[in-house]
């Protein structure tokens, strides 16, 4: 159920990547109900900005009742978020998102995450959920960034049995090249692959097109501007192949790749 709450900050941890933070919030119901691909809408209560800003849920631990988001500083809202300290309360609405990631149920399915930038957090949440529900599940996490410094969010996944393939445009870490370089060979293995992708639109589009071409099912999480996040403003239009416009927030944010009109 969607709730509006003042969630106390538990921890606000700067990451090695410049301007990146993991913000942990005390929000028991949300931690219990949140599903991978969902997000929260945040307002920096200084009112320097009118509208809320959406942030994907990075971790949700029903046991501790703690949820977290991973963000990087762009403007006023993320700037204010970066200055929040434990105990301070953050004004949030969530969990938001109607259609979320659906784990492939096929036996022996190979779950392939393809993330970039702030598209990584929801995919980390997803892969951990899948691993928790199906310890034997085969998962590969492809994380792309311009350069090594901006490869964030996937620390520890390897040890949890989720191998991470890093790709950097400048070759400073892992594969030298785009995420598609790491994805292509997997698409052609003939395994029952399911691709889940989130990140910059050009990246998602490339991943979607490659997957469709290879006949591999692909789910994309569209990150359009979301003024309300709850389905009442119609401002988050996502063009779909039926010639219509869907709402990114409540009809999405996750769409089957073949439904998206890029």
């Amino acid at each position, binding site marked *: *159920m*969607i*709730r*509006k709450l003042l969630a106390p900050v538990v921890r606000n941890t700067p990451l090695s990547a410049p301007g990146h933070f993991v913000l942990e919030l005390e929000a028991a119901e949300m931690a219990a109900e949140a599903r991978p691909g969902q997000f929260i809408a945040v*307002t920096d209560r200084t009112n320097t*900005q*009118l*509208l*809320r800003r959406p942030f994907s849920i990075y971790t949700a631990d029903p046991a501790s009742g703690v949820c977290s988001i991973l963000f990087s500083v762009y403007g006023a809202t993320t700037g204010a978020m970066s200055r929040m300290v434990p105990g301070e309360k953050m004004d949030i*609405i969530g969990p938001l998102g109607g259609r979320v990631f659906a784990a492939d149920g096929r036996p022996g399915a190979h779950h392939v995450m393809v993330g970039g930038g702030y598209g990584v957090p929801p995919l980390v949440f997803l892969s951990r959920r899948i691993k928790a529900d199906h310890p034997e599940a085969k998962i590969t996490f492809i994380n792309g960034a311009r350069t090594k410094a901006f490869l964030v969010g996937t620390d520890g996944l390897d040890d949890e049995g989720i191998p991470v393939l890093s790709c950097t445009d400048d070759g400073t870490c892992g594969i030298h090249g785009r995420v598609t370089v790491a994805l292509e060979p997997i698409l052609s293995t003939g395994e029952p692959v399911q691709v889940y992708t989130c990140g910059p639109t050009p990246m998602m589009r490339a991943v979607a097109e490659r997957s469709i071409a290879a006949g591999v099912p692909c789910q994309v999480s569209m990150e*359009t*501007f979301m*003024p*309300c996040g*709850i*389905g*009442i*403003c*119609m*401002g*988050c*239009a*996502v*063009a779909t192949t039926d*010639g*219509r*416009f869907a709402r990114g927030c*409540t009809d999405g944010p996750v769409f089957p790749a073949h439904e998206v009109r890029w």
Partner: protein
Amino acid sequence: MVSVPDLSVRIGGLQMRNPVTVGSGTFGFGSEVADLVDLNALGAVTVKATTSQARIGNPPARIVETASGMLNAIGLQNGGIDHYLAEKLPFLRRYDCPIIVNVPGENPEDFAFVVERLTAAGGADAIELNISCPNVSHGLDYATDPRLTAEVVARCRRATPLPLIAKLSPNVTDIRPIARAAEEAGADALSLINTVVGTSIDAKKRTFRLANITGGLSGPAIKPIALLHVYRAAQTVRIPIIGMGGIMNATDAIEFLLAGASAVAVGTANFVNPLAAIEIADGIGQYLSENGFASVRDIVGTVSA
């Protein structure tokens, strides 16, 4: 302190338990927020524009944020009147809260068609004629001309016994003749303001930010403009006015009541706080008791120089 103040108001034939409704297009059809908001705590639910045929709306980007405001160019995306009656109305009718349906149109007959359907199907408790949407005809619309305004209102007046609310545009040189025209043509009430037409440019990309180029400005930025239009309209007509434009809290709402509005609508604020409208209704009650007013009607139009 006086006893609990009377918050009820009448807008034409529409009885509201409190003077706070929502701006059309800023609250969906109510169902989207029913988790968060008790619809019965609203004076009325004003639903998204409903047209004779379904409309897919404008391509993105449809909304951009501006200083203390936002521009929107949704393009009246909606499923059409039949879809509203079949899919949206049943849910709303589960609540004991009056429904105001916002009706745009391409010509008087088009307006009247939807008004008649709504009336016949019992799909509304009041109808708000959206003759002022800046996103369909580039900001030049019925409500920018007294004659065209009268034409649409008169035609719809013949089409329904339901309370008719004419929603006026701020994008005019003088709102007074238009308010008068709507009243004389048979409107039971006026609602204003619709959004202020504007645009936004991305200096880096050297492009317009909205696919539609122009959009409607809403939010706190336009409150001073809205307050004056409401004041002028209230000085001009005898029918009640639903005031709106940048209302974020109870104090803002009270300013509109003082300017001459009998009720208010909360729009953009819903995006930031879906509970805004009911919190504002409570806040108005508090203001009345603190200042010893027995009824909200006692402060309407009482601003002095």
